[in-house]
């Protein structure tokens, strides 16, 4: 265009200007310049890094993964012994991070749902309690909350000798929380099978009830039968098989507890702080989701004589979920990322065990940083793929 529009060529200067004003030419020039800058920057960084590393005698290979790490880890979900390889340390870190993330996600969803619904309550007192809970907790840093729970609560608990106990089986002291640990005996397989059967039955019943409602409009009870199917079969199997699970109770021996399941204070502090902090954001998501459903929907349901509970379950929530779920998933991703703050209170998650301890021990900065970043990138990539699928599936289909 620019070439055609230019009036009688007055010489090479004007022609050059015309070429420079051409959109395609400009785009190519800009991109070439950007590429050149980026390549130069990387070349500069990489050449510096190579020189620095050769001066300090560092190496960038992944061969250290097979070497024994030689340090202990305080809390491991998967078996780990001092002397296992660095690769094992990486796995332990990932497992611990995932454990924190899953537990915190479950707790924060439950709490967030309660807070969000309380925020919508007709009751002025409850509404405001929920509002200030949210305002105070989400306006203070998460790290401060984690550290305050750890140093301000869990390390100030009494010594094991004077622990706080409930019914002689659960104990809380400055070494953490002690719970009875289940010990699996013969016949546990029957219980497990019964539980699986019950779960399948519950799914089948819920599906049947929904189909029936959609086809004939008849409403069958769902909640009670499903609960019964979930609870009764394993219970019956337990009774029939004769106590296939025994409990290993924590007991005070000398200065400390033995037996049972010990949950370290750092884990408790991390989970409590993460769940409470995240529940504020989830609560706000729930509130905005429910409020996004137009009031006309509630009024129409009322006019048709649908009772309030059913209105919420069958009319408001399905529509609100479209709005709630995408930000909810990104909150879950945030929980996973925020679990890395565990390092501040010494809980051995991926960042603490891998990016801190292993990096300092082995000095292999580049592979370790790359592996850590790679793990988090992979998680967020997987989550965003799942979210895109979900968003496509809930897209409102119009003609």
């Amino acid at each position, binding site marked *: 265009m620019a070439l055609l529009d230019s009036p009688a060529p007055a010489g090479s200067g004007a022609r050059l200007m015309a070429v420079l004003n051409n959109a395609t030419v400009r785009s190519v020039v800009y991109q070439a310049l*950007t590429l050149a800058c980026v390549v130069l920057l990387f070349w500069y960084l990489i050449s510096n*890094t190579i020189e620095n590393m050769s001066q300090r005698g560092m190496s960038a290979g992944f061969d250290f993964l097979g070497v024994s790490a030689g340090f202990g880890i305080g809390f491991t979900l998967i078996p780990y012994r001092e002397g296992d390889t660095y690769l094992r340390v990486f796995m332990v870190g990932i497992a611990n991070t995932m454990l924190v993330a899953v537990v915190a996600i479950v707790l924060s969803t439950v709490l967030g749902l309660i807070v969000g619904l309380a925020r919508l309550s*007709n009751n002025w007192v*409850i509404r405001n309690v929920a509002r200030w809970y949210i305002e105070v907790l989400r306006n*203070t840093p998460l790290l401060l909350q984690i550290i305050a729970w750890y140093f301000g609560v869990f390390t*100030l608990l009494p010594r094991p000798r004077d622990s706080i106990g409930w019914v002689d089986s659960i104990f809380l002291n400055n070494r953490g929380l002690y719970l009875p640990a289940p010990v699996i005996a013969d016949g546990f397989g029957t219980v497990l099978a019964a539980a699986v059967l019950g779960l399948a039955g519950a799914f089948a019943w819920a599906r049947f009830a929904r189909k029936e409602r959609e086809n004939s409009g008849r409403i069958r009870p769902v909640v009670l039968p499903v609960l019964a199917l979930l609870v009764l079969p394993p219970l019956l199997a337990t009774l029939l098989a004769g106590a296939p699970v025994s409990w290993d109770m924590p007991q005070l021996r000398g200065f400390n507890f033995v037996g049972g399941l010990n949950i370290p204070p750092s884990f408790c502090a991390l989970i409590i702080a993460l769940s409470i902090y995240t529940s504020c954001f989830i609560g706000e998501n729930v509130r905005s989701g429910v409020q996004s459903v137009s009031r006309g929907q509630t009024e129409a349901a009322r006019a048709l004589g649908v009772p309030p509970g059913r209105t919420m379950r069958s009319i408001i929530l399905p529509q609100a979920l479209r709005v709630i779920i995408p930000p909810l998933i990104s909150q879950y991703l945030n929980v996973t990322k925020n679990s*890395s*703050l565990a*390092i501040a209170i010494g809980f051995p998650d991926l960042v603490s065990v891998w990016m801190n301890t292993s990096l300092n021990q082995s000095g292999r900065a580049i592979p370790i940083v790359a592996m850590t970043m790679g793990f988090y*990138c992979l998680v967020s990539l997987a989550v965003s793929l799942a979210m895109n699928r979900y968003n496509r599936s809930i897209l409102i289909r119009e003609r």
Partner: protein
Amino acid sequence: MDEVLSRDSAAVEQLPAEIFKPKPARAAPPSTLGVQGWVRQNMFSSIPNALVTVLGIWIVYAFFDTILTWAVGNAVWEAENRRQCLDLVGRSGACWPGVIAWIPNLIYGLYPKDQVWRINLAGVILLLWALPLWLPRVQSKVQIGLSLVLLFPLLASYLFLGGEKGVIWSALIALGLAGFLWTLLTAATETISGLSFGRYAVAAIGFGGDNDPARRNGQIAALLALYVVALIAVQAMSLSFVATRAWGGLFLTLVISGIGIAFSLPAGIVLALGRRSRMPLISMLSTTFIELFRSVPLITILFTFNTMLPLFLPVGVEVNQLLRAIVAVCLFSSAYMAEVIRGGLQAIPRGQYEAASAMGLGFWQSTGLVIMPQALKIMIPTIVGNFIGLFKDTTLVSIVGLFDLLSMSRAVGEDTRWLGLFLEPFFFITMIYFVVCFTMSQYSLNLEQRLSAGERR
């Protein structure tokens, strides 16, 4: 009349059916007016509701009772050390003398006590610089805001750091000072006469003649004169050097988050435009940067920069820890800001772009004059939310060994005199964080309402 009545009664008597008797009137519904009505409707409308209200009031009471008994009722306000506090009230009351003794450290870190006035001075300058933004008669608010963000850091860098200043740094500091003087003078002249400082100076002195170019030259001369004054003043200043290792407390937290905020907005705009660009290479590079930094936790970026930045730079170049942390925070927050701004850009209808093109505006003009102002306006709450997040996230620098507000508050409990004093300093800094973040969020709500006034009917 009588006749009619008698005939009616006769007719009634003829019918065997029973006489219509109205049901007794229903009681009036409970009043929804006044205090009593409001309380009934919002707190005691049904029995479950009343139970929940009682539960809520009990929670509130128990919470405030516990907090106030601890923080005020049983608190100790004067003691030599923690032992005395514990002897007086044990753990049932707060031990405030420890926090009070540490307040200077909590605010200024280990900054030399006789140099603290420099931080205070920078704070006063910041307030004075921002003040004209709220003065109704001041017109050059955009210029003042820009100068605040771009030039204040130059002036503050010298106030905070001090020491030997080379030629280039002197010129930059003078630019900062000139910006400050210009803001004050413009605020004054615009309040008096409605003219900015440059125009006022031209009008007052009377040189420059009538035509526009001459007047413009006059204005430039006035600004240059201002710069020369600032340069002379800067040459006269001489402050002692304070290493960044001594920086700490609330001061450090504000420095890091301030730089992060000032950097992340323009960088976020550039990245967002890059991601939406039609040039595949630029869009790909921006997307990679944004997604990479958004998918990993800030702490890993801080660690990475802590270990990698010395490797990335030429042999022998030392980077202090503060700078490493600031680089990490800036890159991290600009990636988040980019996504916010991209959201704003996506919300602008296509018609706006097309109308701008139809008016003959090029890319930069249409972006700068038409699209970006609208995008930023609708995104104000989210942008401020990001700033709040950044302010809270600066606590993470305590993990890589900087003495921000959080580390300082932990140091109280490690002081031999106040050994084990954790809850009180945490309580104190929680209040600081809450007040700052809550004020910011309320202000953004307020701003949003004022800016959207045109869309309400």
